[in-house]
């Protein structure tokens, strides 16, 4: 049909004299657009619908995949004082510990290294090397140093996150707008004044990018790779997911997976909000 209309189009004007477009012709008012605020909800709803249909029509056995509704109920009841809550909080705590260590050490060290480019160049290879090394490859090393302790879980996550923070803060200082530095210099600012009044501020935005990636990285390491699945642990979301999988308690497993996802998402959003508040000039 589309073919025939396409072919017919050039002929039409000849066959029919031109008419002023009437009120019901092609010049209709544009359809009211989707309420933009609803758009982000569409994806999740479609996912849950497909998930529901898949379970309903038995495409995946119910023993492997519970209905979305049952999973959500398990998630909510678990987080409302159930055992899922304590595992959730343990994971949050470990992630924050690792993140705080990374931030407290990484930001000042990165800013210092960045303000002395020669110093940064001399350790750049090390930073890039370990940044590129999968954290899981370092598990045995950390086991040797810290043993199978809670310290270890936090230490390896802190290490992974630290490098990201360090790298971003250092580059923030190195790439500071030269002209702002010159402006301060011409006003008679000393090296220290330039550092504290210009360079640190310039590095804030990339530092926030670093902190945001670092907290995600810390969470990933804490949950999946190291702490709670491989090294072994009696607590935490990762432990809960593995445990539930072992005994085929799928409802509990999916609830824990959703909880982990929600945690990662919430942390990211929190950092974005903080960044917009603090680095208010970014992108303007």
């Amino acid at each position, binding site marked *: 049909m589309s073919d025939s209309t396409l072919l017919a189009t050039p002929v039409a004007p000849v066959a029919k004299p031109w008419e002023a477009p009437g009120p019901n012709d092609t010049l209709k008012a544009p359809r009211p657009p989707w309420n933009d605020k609803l758009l982000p909800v569409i994806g999740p709803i479609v996912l849950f619908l497909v998930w529901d249909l898949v379970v309903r029509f038995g495409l995946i056995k119910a023993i492997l995949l519970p209905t979305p509704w049952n999973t959500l109920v398990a998630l909510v009841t678990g987080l409302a004082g159930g055992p899922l809550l304590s595992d959730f909080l343990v994971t949050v705590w470990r992630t924050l510990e690792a993140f705080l260590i990374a931030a407290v050490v990484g930001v000042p060290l990165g800013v210092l290294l960045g303000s002395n480019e020669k110093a940064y160049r001399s350790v750049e290879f090390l930073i890039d090397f370990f940044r590129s090394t999968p954290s899981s490859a370092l598990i045995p090393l950390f086991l040797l140093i810290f043993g199978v302790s809670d310290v270890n879980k936090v230490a390896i996550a802190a290490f992974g996150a630290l490098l990201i923070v360090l790298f971003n803060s250092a580059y923030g200082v190195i790439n500071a707008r030269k002209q702002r530095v010159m*402006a301060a210099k011409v006003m008679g600012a000393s090296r220290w004044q330039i550092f504290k009044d210009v360079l640190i501020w310039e590095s804030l935005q990339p530092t926030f990018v670093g902190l945001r990636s670092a907290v995600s990285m810390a969470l990933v390491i804490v949950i999946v790779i190291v702490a709670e699945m491989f090294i072994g642990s009696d607590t935490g979301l990762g432990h809960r997911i593995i445990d539930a999988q072992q005994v085929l308690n799928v409802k509990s497993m999916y609830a824990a997976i959703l909880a982990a996802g929600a945690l990662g998402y919430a942390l990211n959003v929190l950092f974005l909000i903080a960044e917009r508040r603090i680095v208010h000039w970014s992108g*303007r």
Partner: protein
Amino acid sequence: MRTIESPIVAERPAGFVPGPAGTHITIRGLTKYFAGWPLYESFDLDIPKHKIVSVFGPNGCGKSTLINMIAGLIPIDAGEILFDGKSLKDTKIGYVFQNYREALLPWRRTIDNIRYPLELEGMKKGDIDARIGELEQSFSVKFDLKRYPYELSGGQQQTASIMRALAPKPEVIFLDEPFSALDFEMTLFIREKLQEVFMATGTTMMLVSHDLEEAVYLADEVLLLTKRPTRVAEILQYRDARPRTVDTLSTPSFVAMKKLSMEIFQREVRR
């Protein structure tokens, strides 16, 4: 190469020739290489006090480089630059950049940007407030200085940059194409403000401009430069009375000055 063979100390000529009476900035034997090629070589220049000097010349002749070297933003390879016989570090200068966006500090409110050079001086809070009040008056500021720079228009930001440069009452103000990023209306406004400030304070100014009309309009002296290696092609005196206005632009003396500058400029470009 040359700079290594003859360090700066040795370069100070035995017979240092001071400029004529009323000279503010004395430049002697200024040498600057870019990528192995001389940009300035044994360059001498006297900048008069209480005057506006407009710097004009062919592309790439180093107009901005010249004022950046005088302002200490770009190191020089050899030579000496003195302000009333003093070195730069004993001299208070102000600088207005072309790109106000990257010259103001966006994490400080506009008013705190203007306060910044005074804070650097260690001035007391009360004195700073008084000085800011003076500046606000003389610029008859009609926008909110408590806003952040990025909340202001380009012209307002450049106005703030000029206020910041003026705040510490500098001896010399350098302006590197201060109008190039502004629309026509704002250019006119800031041009008038600069003239007012100059008439009120007599601060020595060096203005780099790529617009000949602008350069002549504000100038007491038009400094015309050659292609690189850069030398002084000519220094023209422009003596029309201030305040100059839109009418000045059509007076015979202005038109003649602009024409002469243009002829020298074209001669240098073709050379």
